[in-house]
């Protein structure tokens, strides 16, 4: 058996002294799509930030292995260069920095760390043209400052555009579907689907089953109070849509 791409073992995480995750276990293999569902405050966003290495989140116990190696000591940029990408729930604005300039700098920083040649302006433009089609992003947005004055939907599309250009090995999407209208949702989903690859895994964090109508997951996990309370196939998402989360809470309580 090949090594899992991502292996989370008994992960405990605190923010400013409050423990949010109380022992999460999760294994994601290359080529798989996993969905993490759960109510507000269940620790979904925390999980994504910890994997990406946000400095405010303190791991008090457990480990996160990526390609078999612990990444907990790695800087966020090192994790990014190793192929971990996080599409943010609330993308930040960087005034005065053009989307194109930012993305080319990021891509070249990653390529450089992997010992690959940096892309020239022309090569980068070609790549951008190709990827922009994939997520149907307006060329006009690309030349504007990063997320500045973008609508909620445009910001999310921009995250997926960055995902497409940076082509990571592990893509984590933190509620990328929230706040999207149905057309934008479809575009985002088709962007993700077109990037599905035996070498690449997706971790989708979402509130709603809706996204999973368009992106079919291999596994669905329910995060409850900082633990994974239930895991299943895609049918679990449908059950949640039907019955809500209460029954899982009850199940977990009686277990």
């Amino acid at each position: 058996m090949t090594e899992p791409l991502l292996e989370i073992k008994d992960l405990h995480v605190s923010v400013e002294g409050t423990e949010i995750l109380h022992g999460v276990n999760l294994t994601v293999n290359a080529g798989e799509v996993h969905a993490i569902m759960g109510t507000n405050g269940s620790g979904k966003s925390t999980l994504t930030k910890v994997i990406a290495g946000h400095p405010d989140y303190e791991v008090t116990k457990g480990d996160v292995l990526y390609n078999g190696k612990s990444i907990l000591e790695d800087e966020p940029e090192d994790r990014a260069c190793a192929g971990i990408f996080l599409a943010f729930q609330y993308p930040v604005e960087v005034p005065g920095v053009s989307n194109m300039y930012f993305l080319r700098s990021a891509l070249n920083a990653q390529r450089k760390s992997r010992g690959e040649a940096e892309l020239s302006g022309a090569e980068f433009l070609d790549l951008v043209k190709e990827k922009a089609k994939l997520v149907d992003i307006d060329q006009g947005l690309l030349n504007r400052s990063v997320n500045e004055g973008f609508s909620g939907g445009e910001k999310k599309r921009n995250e997926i555009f960055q995902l497409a250009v940076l082509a990571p090995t592990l893509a984590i999407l933190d509620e990328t579907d929230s706040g999207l209208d149905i057309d934008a949702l479809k575009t985002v989903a088709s962007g993700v689907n077109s990037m599905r690859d035996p070498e690449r895994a997706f971790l989708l964090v979402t509130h709603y089953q809706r996204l999973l109508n368009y992106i079919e997951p291999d596994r669905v996990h329910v995060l409850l109070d900082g633990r994974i309370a239930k895991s299943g196939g895609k049918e679990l998402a449908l059950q949640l849509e039907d019955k809500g989360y209460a029954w899982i809470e009850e199940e977990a309580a009686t277990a």
Partner: protein
Amino acid sequence: MAETNETVQALAEAEYKHGWSSNVESDQLPPGLNEDIVRAISAKKNEPEWLTEWRLRAYRHWLTMPEPDWQKPKYPKIDYQNIIYYSAPKKKVSLESLDEVDPELLETFEKLGISLDEQKRLTGVAVDAVFDSVSVKTTFREELSKQGVIFCSFSEAVTDHPELVKKYLGSVVPYTDNYFATLNSAVFSDGSFCYIPPGVRCPMELSTYFRINTAGTGQFERTLLIADEGAYVSYLEGCTAPSRDENQLHAAVVELVALKGAHIKYSTVQNWYPGDKNGKGGVYNFVTKRGTAHENAKVSWTQVETGSAITWKYPSCVLKGDNSVGEFYSVALTRDHQMADTGTKMVHIGKNTKSTIVSKGISAGQGDQTYRGLVKILPKAEGARNYSVCDSLLIGGKCGAHTVPYIESSNKSAVIEHEASTSKISDDQIFFLRQRGLSEEDAVSMIVNGFCKDVLSELPMEFAVEAQKLLGLKLEGAVG
């Protein structure tokens, strides 16, 4: 977020790279200031009597003036009797070609990254280099003169074009203007002079590099730039100084005259020695810069202020003619113990005059800065418009930023807008950029660079690059 702070600190404490000094023999007057010194400076420059008299009038007026103290940065009392007012590289004879320039001087300029030779061949930028107090070499003069453009040292202008100097010297900044401008009027030793004839678009960027070298010297240069009717010129100014423990005074005066329909674009990248990490040493940059815009003329100031222990200056526009335009774009970076009190004055006299002020202040370490700006609309300035935006970016928790806008309007038809903001670099921004693969240092640079973009994009390309290097930033906008 200890690691964020470390990088920010590293960035903020990046060492001063121009801290060397050159062993060029200099010919200098003894320290001190009195009428004899003023006369001696004038004599050294073989000046006509009217100029000697003008200096003396300034000196006598200066004696009656109190040193101003309304600015925010305070400094220990300056002993004006302990300053050397004139210092020139000794070998100075009249120089006809670069070969005649003292090799050590040339080396100095090469260290500055402005090999005159290189400049001459490659960039098409004409350079006048002022070393301590004396202009060393003006490149490209012949080519410029074909178009009738005069670009030379101030001293040469006094000799070769006395009628222009006499007509315009002090016409924008009179010798009675303020304490430091008046002092400059008495003791200025050299500087640059430029005249663009009517209708001529100056074919290249003109540039002056200033460097203070000799210990204990003050630098008092004077720049006079005249764009005749319908002319255009873009002028660049750069400054560095060696690292020295004592404070050095730089009190320059720049006068711009934009006649009817002329456009002057004046850009500065100022990187005087800022003092060490504990605030010891550094240049006091107390400069008076002002331009007069006649009918339909335009005066644009762009400045990137990264150096000096104290920067205290307000490049200003007197919008005298109808429909004239004034612009001020500024980036000021203060770190360690640097202080800056800078801004502009826009004086609207003519009808339908317009002014724009874009000021970006970045404070890091224990840096402290003040934007101070005056927008003054006189009674006859019908239809005057001003737009000001002052943004401050704070890096770390020990720095300060202050915005002090003064608005005086005496005409009801005037429209004046002022926007101000203060922000900190957010941890979320840094994390976002790092998550995409950028190092923390690059992330900070990128954010700062973006913050300054509106100003940096006003700089001519060559200078934009230098400015970005100075800000520790990468080039923005290479794609797209």
